């Protein structure tokens, strides 16, 4: 009996996930034909609450692509893979305090800020580097024009509030 209930519970959860995934997918299905451009997959996955790295994203894309990549991803292939991701709670978002620590690692002398040049250097040369567009966009919001630096604690606080 308990087993049945549990199974039912999981089924409900899966059904909910399916609807969520469908909604997110449809936002980017511009031609209403159950496909999205492969370049939007990352956005879709992230909009569902996951926070994969670029490498992890690449692996996921390989899973959902056709054998002969067409540049489009079909919903039928995307759904089961994404459902599994949600069920397994993969690619959890990063908590605020961890993020703060990451910034602090880049600021060993604990000044409380990073200069614009330092930020650019780290973001475009380390980790999974930003494109120029990504860098510019981040700078536009993060840099305090007077000091030409980013006070990362404030920055995080601002972004987190806005994220909802």
């Amino acid at each position: 009996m308990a087993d049945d209930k549990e199974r039912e519970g999981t089924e409900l959860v899966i059904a909910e996930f399916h609807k969520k995934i469908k909604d997110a997918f449809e936002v980017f299905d511009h031609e209403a034909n159950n496909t999205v451009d492969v370049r939007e997959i990352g956005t879709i996955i992230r909009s569902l609450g996951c926070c994969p790295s670029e490498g992890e994203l690449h692996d996921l894309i390989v899973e959902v692509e056709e054998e002969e990549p067409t540049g489009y991803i079909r919903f039928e292939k995307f759904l089961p893979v994404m459902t599994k991701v949600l069920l397994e709670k993969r690619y959890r978002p990063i908590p605020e305090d961890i993020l703060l620590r990451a910034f602090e690692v880049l600021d060993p002398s604990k000044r409380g800020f990073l200069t614009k040049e330092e930020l650019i250097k780290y973001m475009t040369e380390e980790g999974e580097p930003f494109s120029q567009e990504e860098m510019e966009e981040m700078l536009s919001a993060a840099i305090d024009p007077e000091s030409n630096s980013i006070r990362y604690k404030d920055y995080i606080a601002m972004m987190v509030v806005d994220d909802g």
Partner: protein
Amino acid sequence: RFIHKWGHSLLARISTHFTAFKAAALIQRWYRRYMARLETRRCCTWRIFQSIEYAGQQDHVKLHDFFSYLVDHFTPNSNHESEYEARKDSEMEKGSDYESIEVPDNYTGPRLSFPLLPNHATALVEAFRLKQQLHARYVLNLLHETRKHLVQLPNINRVSTCYSEEITVCGDLHGQLDDLIFIFHKNGLPSPERAYVFNGDFVDRGKESVEILMILFAFMLVYPKEFRLNRGNHEDHMVNLRYGLTKEVMHKYKTHGKKILKILQDVFCWLHLATLVDEKVLILHGGVSDMPDLELLAKLDRHKVLTTEVVSCEREGRAGSCPGAGSAPWAPPPGLPRGHRASRSSSIPCSCGPPWGPGAGRCRQQAGPPRAGRRGAPCPPRQKQVVDILWSDPMAQEGCKANTVRGGGCYFGPSVTEQLLQKYNLQFLIRSHERKPEGYEFCHRRKVLTIFSASNYYEVGSNRGAYVKLGPALTPYIVQYQANKETHRLTMRQRISRVEESALRSLWEKLFASSLDLLGEFKKHDADKTGLITLSAWAEAVESVLHLGLPWRMLKPQLVNSSTDNTLEYKSWLEDLAKEQLSRENIQSSLLETLYRNRPNLEAIFRITDSDHSGFISLDEFRQTWKLFSSHMNIDITDDCICDLARSIDLNRDGHIDINEFLEAFRIVEQSSTEGDTSDCPQATNTDNSGCSKPSKR
């Protein structure tokens, strides 16, 4: 707890192994997710605007049925139809009496004399930039000259890069003067070396449609070979009734507005249908069908297509399937097909729908003794060609099917484009008609270019505008812009928030307008009468009522305030909706909802009823019209309610309702609070010889 433990172990790993590399990777990962969420919000917002707009267009189609019905039953008969016609014709030829209009001495606006010189046109641009208004006399004069000029021109206009080295093609402007001024500023004013083609939809929605028309027509008269205008689906008096041009003209020109509208209707019919550059690039407003016939297009009597307003089949949700072209066999219109006549009357709709779907293909003759036999050529092919050109959209899938979203024209696939290009030996197609976030978009393997020039179309920050330049090599060179200085200072985050807010406001309104229906649906999901429903049920219910095809679960955080454990107290949610929207508590709430829901239609109805464009309708007319409308649309309002409503609106008890006051009472007049209400206030320059007895309001 679990997250805490996970966090701790991560922290532990970090402190021992953390390098700059890993720290950077973490930040990047987090940031990319943040941007993805922004991007999703942006797409959702766009979808909201689109679906509301298309839903509005569907209303428009239903409304057209109603208008036809109205016309059949309420327009006065004219027994001497031919005399009436002849009188109208001579009036038009006489130039609508503009010569008798006096321009007062204290008029400080721009003055025109004909034939126009380039500096007149430039002076106009400058004058409008300074927010001056052109006197009605000059408006009429200009329109008259424009018409004279257009009548001599062919349907398909040919331009060559031999004469002007570069040609700039601009898309929809929709009354946004700022964008036009920006284009001239950035790209240069028109000249013999700098040719321009404006690809339709100059008017409606924006508040400066009149000024744009004046500028465009002036330059066309000054540089007839280098400055061309294609007709768009908004260059159409029926569409103007609903989407703003009629209102703008009547507001800016209280005495002579009617005359202006009449001649404008004619001018629109005489615009080019398409432009061909070097016989290689075809420019037209909407698109093509799978039976494109440029020869027919070149020969047909374009001025007889007064309006491309269409009667349509039932709308299917955007995400749903559209009927294929083969599914509804072409059915000849019921009764005798009646030819179109070059009618001058502005209040008679005259249209023929695309040959598919139920109830299609109704043709209506001018009011008066109907069924007077066939006149002129059979209407379907001509009308269809023009409708297709002005309304169609490209699609990625192959084939050609009915454009049910717009209610007219079709969706055409890559092979249709290919066919057209091959048949006429063309290189590519430039069209407009659809707004694009970047102002332009290529499709069909870069054979079709959509160009849209109205930036910030939905809201500040919503999209860019663009124009395209062609040199002798005919390689398209695209320039993008956003004609609002503010947007440059905003970050993407702020831009998206503002646009989102605007979209959400529209969505709130729509939800409120359907409160009763929503309550009914919610109750269905609440069999145990707990007052709660799951969020999943909420999403289903909302979609089944509104039919907007929106991703409700994605929008949930913005529409539903804090819901614990995945349920919602729907009654209080609906009450919250109401609190935000209600402005008059003394009117029965269901009536208010109904009016709200039909708000865009109301305005159009009033304007049709107010056939003499006086700005007033009598109480009786209002009651009758509303009764008809509600029975036609199956809305349930009691007679008493209507009477009460009518009486409450007639504030000065003189038996007449002032349209603007009525609409404002329900806050229906478009909110211009962010733009500074200059267009709603009569100009201080006293350019219009109105002699109106009513003191200016607001």
